[in-house]
Structures are given as C-alpha cells and as structure tokens.
C-alpha cells in the first residue's frame, strides 16, 4: 500500500509539473465560453445549449487528455527504460501500474472539476440556474472517462504500439455509443455466426450510450436503481480492464 501511495503521489506531481492539465483546462474553458457565443443562436433554448455544449466540451477534453496520458503512461517509461530503474527497487508491478493509473485519473478528474466549476459559475452568472442533475451528469461523464482510460491502458499494454492503442480506444468509444444499433442488427442478422459476433461485440465494448446521463439530462430524472446499476457497471468494467492490465504487465518481459 505504501508503494502504491508513493507511485500515486509521484504521478500526480509529475502531471502537475508537466502542466498538461493547464493546457487542457484552458482549452476546455475556451470551448465553454465558445458555447456561450454559439448559444446566442438558439433563441429561448440558450440555457439548454450552454449546458449541453459546456458538459460535452468538459467530457471531450477530459477524455482526450486521459486517454492520451494513459496510453503513454507505461509505454513511454518502457521506451525510455525508466521502468527498469523503478522495478529494480522493491516495487510490485501491480502497485506501480495501479498507482500510475490512479494518479493520472486523479490529475485529470481534478482538471475536469475546475472546468465544471467554471462552467457552472458562467451559467449562474448568465442567470441560468443549474440543478442537481448537473453533478450527476458530470459524475457519469467522469465514469465514462475512467472506463475508457482503463480500456486504453489495457490496449496499450497488449498492442505495444501507442498509435494502435489510441485508434482501438477511439473505435471502442464510437462502438460504445452504438450498442443499441449493434443489437438491432444482431436481431436481424440472417446467419447465427453474424448474430453471435454482433451480440458478443455489443457485450464486450463498454455500453457508453446507457452509461451516459449527459445526453439525457433534459428528460426525466433517473431512478436510484439506474444510478446504482450504472455506477457499479462502470466500476466493474474499469476493474476488469485494470485486473487484465495487471496480468499482462506482471507477465511482461522487459
């Protein structure tokens, strides 16, 4: 546990020193203010548009930053051979991997929290009240980011190429929003093999369309059972990816 904590704090300090969070936050704030301008076109739906564009900008910037950092997290240290130095100390591989991942998630989500506060502040200043559903939408957006980052880490360790890992993560992100369509196609597929493949793919990719509350924020509020199921699903999916990543990393020969 002490090793995990040490790797975690070292990773957070590293991200803060590199100031990747600062450029992400600035870019996010530019998009949020840009959303304010775009919202002026929406007549009496300006508040709605400002809310949607701001949350979408926060999620997109956080996701890009998290996936980029996660994919580089281990591979860059393998390429620079820094990982040899670290693992020559009494550091368990599992603690190293999970500490690095948790530290990165902490830095990225803290940046998203700054963007979220700025967005809420801007909306309040414009006279548009924001209710509790905002916090729920933000939290589940971060849940999706955590799931995708865990998947990106697994892909980066199994594919060994950073570019391939990023491309496959982007594919998974898009497929995760088309799970309903994949099931629709599976039901109508003429061959059992195609049906099984589509159904299997729909189960294997993270079901982001149903994990997402940001896009459904204007509809009826979700019940506590949905909140519990969505939170546990995100945790279980991310934990499965991290457990598999640990397995791959434990058996990796440097």
């Amino acid at each position, binding site marked *: 546990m002490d090793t995990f904590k040490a790797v975690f704090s070292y990773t957070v300090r590293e991200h803060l020193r590199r100031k990747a969070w600062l450029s992400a936050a600035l870019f996010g704030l530019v998009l949020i203010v840009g959303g304010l301008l775009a919202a002026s*076109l*929406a*007549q*009496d*739906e*300006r*508040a*709605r*548009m400002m809310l*949607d*564009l701001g949350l*979408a900008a926060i*999620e*997109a910037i956080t996701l890009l930053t998290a996936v980029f950092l996660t994919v580089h997290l281990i591979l860059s240290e393998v390429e620079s051979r820094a990982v040899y130095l670290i693992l020559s100390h009494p550091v368990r591989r*599992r603690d190293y991997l999970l500490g690095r991942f948790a530290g990165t998630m902490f830095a990225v989500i803290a940046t998203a929290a700054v963007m979220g506060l700025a967005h809420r502040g801007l909306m309040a200043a414009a*006279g548009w009240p924001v209710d509790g559903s905002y916090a729920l939408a933000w939290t589940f957006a971060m849940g*999706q980011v955590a799931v995708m980052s865990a998947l990106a880490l697994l892909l980066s360790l199994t594919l060994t190429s950073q570019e391939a890992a990023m491309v496959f993560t982007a594919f998974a*992100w*898009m497929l*995760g*929003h*088309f799970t*309903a*369509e994949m099931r*629709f196609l599976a039901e109508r597929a003429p061959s059992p093999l195609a049906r099984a493949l589509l159904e299997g793919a729909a*189960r294997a990719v993270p*079901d*982001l*369309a*149903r*994990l*997402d509350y*940001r*896009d*459904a*924020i*204007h*509809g*009826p509020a979700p*019940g506590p*059972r*949905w909140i519990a*199921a*969505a939170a*546990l*699903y995100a945790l*279980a*999916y991310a*934990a*499965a990816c991290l*457990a*598999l990543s*640990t*397995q791959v990393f*434990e*058996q990796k020969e440097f």
Partner: protein
Amino acid sequence: MARSGAWAAGGCAAAALLLGGALRRLSRDFPPLSQLPDTPFVLQDATLAGGGLRAAAADLAWIEMLQYAAGHGDGFADSGFGYSRLPDLARRVVRLDPAFHSAYTYAAGILAWFHGVDRPDDAAAILEEGMRRDPGHPTYALYIAAIAYKKKGDTDAMVRTLDAACSAPDASVFVRELLANVHSERGEYGRALEIWNAILDDPALADQHPRAELEIGKIRAKMR
C-alpha cells in the same frame, strides 16, 4: 499471484456483463439513428451521436431548423416559404433528443397557425410524437385539441383551449406569442396585452422582451 489476478479479472468481467444487462433493462433508450428522417444532415448527426454528443447534435439540429424556418436553411430549395421540410427537421431534433420540448411546439405552432401554411395534420402528428416520446407535458394534448377545433372551424373553442394550454408552466413562448396575435386579430386587445406583459415580466424570456415591447406598443396604438 497470477492465478488470483486472473480470477479477479474474470470476476470483474462477469460482474460487468451482469450489470450491463441490468443497465439495459433500467435505461431509457434513445430512438435508433435509423429512425432519423432523410435530411442532408444524416452524416453530421451520426458522427456526433457516435462521438457521444447526442444532445449537442440535437442543439445543432434545432439551430438548423430555426435557420430553415427563417428562410436561411442551407440545402433546401424552399427554405422559409412552404415549410415543406419543417416536419422532417423537427423529427430530426426530437429523435436525437426526445426531451426537446420546444422543437415539438415550435414546429407544430408554425404548421398549424402560421398564415398561409395551414398543415394541421402534420402539426398534430409532431405533437402526438411528443406525447409518446416526451411524457409529462399535458400541453401537447391541449395543442392537439386546439388544432382539432381549428380544423372544425370552431375558432372560439380553439382560442379557449390555447388559453388553457398557455397558462401551463411548460407552455411554449412561441405558442403564447401566436395566441396573443390571434387575440389581437379578434379585437381582444386586453387578453393580447396580458400575454405580452407576462412575457415581458419573465426574466427568463429576455430575448423576447424587445418583441413584446413592440407588440404592446402596436396594441396600445390600436386601442386608442
């Protein structure tokens, strides 16, 4: 160690599969993208929805519908004249986000009550879709009733029904403005002034205040 790690991974994956099934049962699905109407924006909508930006895609579709209604829609030969593509553009917005209340009422308001448009059946079809996909808004049924009275030529009943609809908290500002104009045309200036003053007093409708002031001035001039 390796075996316990493999068990942990397998357990988490099995839990994710089970919870994914529960999540599917508890979630409200959006309409599938295959139900989007045929417009020049299909690729844009699919790309944004695939990128997880469905609400933002609906917002963009809303702006494009407003531009079309104002006569500036790109890609449509008749933009702003016959409103022939307005039902498709409204369906595009509400199938991207079924909770987009204004899109149902705005399109239905134009199709049912704009001068020279007179497409009450299309307006009623959009409102019926609203009743199905966006429950919890009783005003949809009242607007449909008002359209039915309009088709029967019973203007008094239509105005009474619209008055009832427009006193609801979720009443569309666009339909309230249309109703104020109907009252004004019928010489019911007091009721028209009431509606415009209510719009003027609502800080959330600041965009509509210049228009409300203009219309109030016009009505007061007629009353003199």
